[in-house]
């Protein structure tokens, strides 16, 4: 096929795509005009039904909690896949994180980077836990909080050496935390079945004050477990990739 023919095929296909795209666009509802019935319905009843003022969390962990279990396990399986694909192969061995040449100093981390990373680690951990444990009160949640917690581990890596990162997040611990996080979510749902309620039904006391930290029953609890799972999964993924940079074939 000559370049000229290829260009023609592309132009025809491109024009077709553009036409379909514009046709689809013309059928969309106006900007900011949501036509579905669910948004207004949820906004009307969610706070009264769940006592959670973080309505997004109420939707994620209660109204469509079953979908969120699936999403949780997408991340779980992804982390497992990374760990499987990046396992040390036969003939690969880990070299020490320190420079092997005795007479040559490894380039030190600049003090500016160390300082910033050190200053941020504490506040990032605090913010992460806060987000993961306040899903019921505001637009935070286990996912956002969990990833923020994982970035705290990245900061520890940036501020020092890989060995310190490994000491703070040993693979065994992240694996267990991942399992506890993902399993906890499922177990909360199964407990509802044990009580003759639908799976993931919100069976815990909802509290009396909407938007209080103690409110919203299982929503807050599920968000907490999601936080653990997400933090562990992302720390595990980053840890596996860091391990890779230290591997070499013998």
């Amino acid at each position, binding site marked *: 096929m000559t370049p000229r023919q290829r260009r023609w095929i592309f132009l025809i296909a491109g024009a077709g795509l553009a036409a379909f795209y514009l046709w689809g666009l013309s059928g969309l509802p106006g*900007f*900011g*005009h949501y036509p579905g019935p669910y948004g207004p319905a949820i906004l009307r009843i969610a706070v009264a039904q769940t006592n959670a003022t973080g309505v*997004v*969390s109420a939707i994620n962990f209660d109204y469509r909690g079953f979908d969120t279990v699936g999403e949780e396990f997408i991340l779980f399986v992804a982390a497992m896949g990374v760990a499987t694909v990046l396992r040390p192969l036969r003939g690969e061995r880990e070299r020490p994180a320190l420079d092997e040449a005795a007479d040559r100093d490894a380039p030190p981390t600049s003090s500016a980077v160390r300082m910033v990373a050190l200053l941020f680690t504490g506040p990032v951990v605090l913010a992460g836990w806060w*987000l993961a444990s306040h899903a019921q009160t505001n*637009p*935070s*949640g286990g*996912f*956002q909080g969990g*990833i*923020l917690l*994982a*970035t705290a581990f*990245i900061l520890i890596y940036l501020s020092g050496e890989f060995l310190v990162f490994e000491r703070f997040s040993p693979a065994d611990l992240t694996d267990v935390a991942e399992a506890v996080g993902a399993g906890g979510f499922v177990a909360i749902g199964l407990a509802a079945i044990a009580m003759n309620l639908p799976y993931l039904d919100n069976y815990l006391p909802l509290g009396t004050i909407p938007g209080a930290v103690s409110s919203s029953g299982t929503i807050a609890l599920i968000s907490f477990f999601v936080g653990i799972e997400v933090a562990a999964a*992302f720390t595990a*993924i*980053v840890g596996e*990739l*860091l391990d*890779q*940079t230290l591997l*070499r*074939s013998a």
Partner: protein
Amino acid sequence: MSTLAVHTPYTVPVGMMDALQVTLLVLVAAGATAVVLIRAPVRQVLMLSTYGVLLAVLFLAFQAPDVTLSELTVGAVVLPVVILLTLAKVRKPEQ
């Protein structure tokens, strides 16, 4: 677009909100184009991180603060770190 003016103690005038949203949409489009056009991998990662921040601010202006938090952590921090680590692995000369 007037339906976007939700009345809270922090209500922003509709015209100003429209201007902000249009500005951010243009910036996000420019950022995405820049990510594609930059060819040097490390620079591309830095631009990708900047693009993540832009996208996060866009979500905030469109009243989705929960998505903002996710985008800020995933798009601006974790994804660039993962790509940088991959580049470090690929670039290391095999001995």
